[in-house]
């Protein structure tokens, strides 16, 4: 079965083709970053306007890259939420209309399930059950995944997501938007021993996170410092240590609680080198395994949506009726 995947939940337009036999056959992505950068955040109306210009050209490119004709597509998966309602609608309406015109089944996919399943696109995919750490721009969550489709939320951020904290601190330090990766790069120039920031909630038995206090602590430290380039790097270093440490402690706790030695990491912050190094070391110590998506599939993409959709479409699951629905807010939690 060959599935076309479509992603338009935020500020990337993406289309991919996944096939039962050939695996991932193509993936195309257009990032609107330059459009939103000047505003320091995503402007929903501009995002939607860009999606509708790009969706069909990208689809044609994805088909071409997959050496496929329209009629080779057996099913269509699209992100139905969560995300920006107007942006989601462009992808959903296009996908459903295309499915209608080709007389092929369609399925709305949960964006976060897409993220969680991204490591399945790699050559050694994880085997459930496992614990999953989802760390993105909008989410910081720990799940227990007993099987694909069965996600039990173990804990989550009570305020800012880890990626959001990275971005806010980066903005504070003048590193632009979204500055998570730039902040991580700067942290490499930083030295230990100058600043320390709190590890929120780590002594609590639950698996929740809180990152909003961290940015206030960072702001105060920055104001009190000499504000040299080295100070900036040292602060970046200490901030990254605090976030990664917190993620590590809670993830370890989750693995112990669930008696699991398999971990899946997904979402944009999953591209962070320090996070990967620490988690890999942790799992090695437990004689367990950790699974990551390739770097480009940590952030939003359609390959993960095509894969997630394929998983259900091949079992005959599809949109129940012709009504097109998107869900800007949508919990991923079903046992």
């Amino acid at each position: 079965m060959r599935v076309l995947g479509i992603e338009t939940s935020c500020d990337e337009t993406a289309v991919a083709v996944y096939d039962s036999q050939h695996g991932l056959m193509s993936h195309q992505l257009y990032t609107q970053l330059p459009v939103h950068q000047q505003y320091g955040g995503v402007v929903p109306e501009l995002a939607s306007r860009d999606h509708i210009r790009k969706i069909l050209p990208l689809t044609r490119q994805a088909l071409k890259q997959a050496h496929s004709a329209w009629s080779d597509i057996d099913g269509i998966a699209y992100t139905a939420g969560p995300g920006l309602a107007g942006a989601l609608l462009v992808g959903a309406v296009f996908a459903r209309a295309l499915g209608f015109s080709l007389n092929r089944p369609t399925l709305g996919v949960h964006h976060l399930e897409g993220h969680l399943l991204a490591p399945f696109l790699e050559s050694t995919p994880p085997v459930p059950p496992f614990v999953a750490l989802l760390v993105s721009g909008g989410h910081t969550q720990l799940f227990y995944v007993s099987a694909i489709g069965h996600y039990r939320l173990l804990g989550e951020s009570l305020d800012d997501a880890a990626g959001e904290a990275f971005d806010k601190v980066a903005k504070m330090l003048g590193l632009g938007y979204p500055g998570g990766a730039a902040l991580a790069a700067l942290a490499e120039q930083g030295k230990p021993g100058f600043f320390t920031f709190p590890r929120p909630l780590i002594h609590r038995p639950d698996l929740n996170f809180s990152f909003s206090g961290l940015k206030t602590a960072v702001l105060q430290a920055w104001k009190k410092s000499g504000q040299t380039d080295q100070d900036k790097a040292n602060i970046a270093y200490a901030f990254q240590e605090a976030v990664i440490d917190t993620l590590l402690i809670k993830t370890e706790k989750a693995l112990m609680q669930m008696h699991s030695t398999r971990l899946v990491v997904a979402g944009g912050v999953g591209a962070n080198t320090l996070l990967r190094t620490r988690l890999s070391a942790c799992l090695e110590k437990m004689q367990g395994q950790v699974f990551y998506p390739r770097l480009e599939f940590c952030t939003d993409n359609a390959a993960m949506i095509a894969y997630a959709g394929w998983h259900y479409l091949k079992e005959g699951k599809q949109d129940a009726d012709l009504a097109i629905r998107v869900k800007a807010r949508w919990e991923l939690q079903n046992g």
Partner: protein
Amino acid sequence: MKILAFDTSTQQCSVALLCGNEIKDISLDAPNQHAELLLPLIHRLLHEAGLSLTQLNAIGFSRGPGSFTGLRIAASLAQGLACAHDIPVAAISTLQMMAQATHLTQHAERIAVAMDARMQQIYWGTFAGTGIMLPTCPEQVLSPNEVILAGKDWTAVGTAWQVYSDSLLFLQPQLAHIDTKSLPQARNLIPLAQYQIEQKLTVSAENALPIYLRDKVC
């Protein structure tokens, strides 16, 4: 001639199908339900006419101005329906469609369309002709008091004539008739889509794009 047309530029969700000489249409008042209703309505019209999508000569949609989200719903629907079968698309002005409707029902030949654009502005377009109403000026978004209208005997169409009746009062001497009630209807897309087919003005699916008129959005 077989043409499918839909309009979601206002609160109304409107779908029409031309099959031979007959137009079948459905219009529902459906704020925020356009995406839910469109495909079921289209399926129903096609099914009742015993038509499949591939038999269509063109797909028409109202490309704006109007509700931004509504315009994108119609445009992405047109793209998705048209792309795989290379069905020509007629992207039609909402203002022109309203002018066309008034022309057909009231035989007016000079029509000034003004739709409420919120934020103290209107979407403005003037049309004239016999048979097919064609624009006599570029469509604009502007303040009611910025409107410039030459000549007399205009028929005024659109909600803005009521919403901004005070600010538009200065145009009164140039108006022959005012209709503030009418909303865009998909059936009025059909003659304009036919005209686009005849004049080879239809576009391919990737150019089925909204025209918002208001481009400053943040």
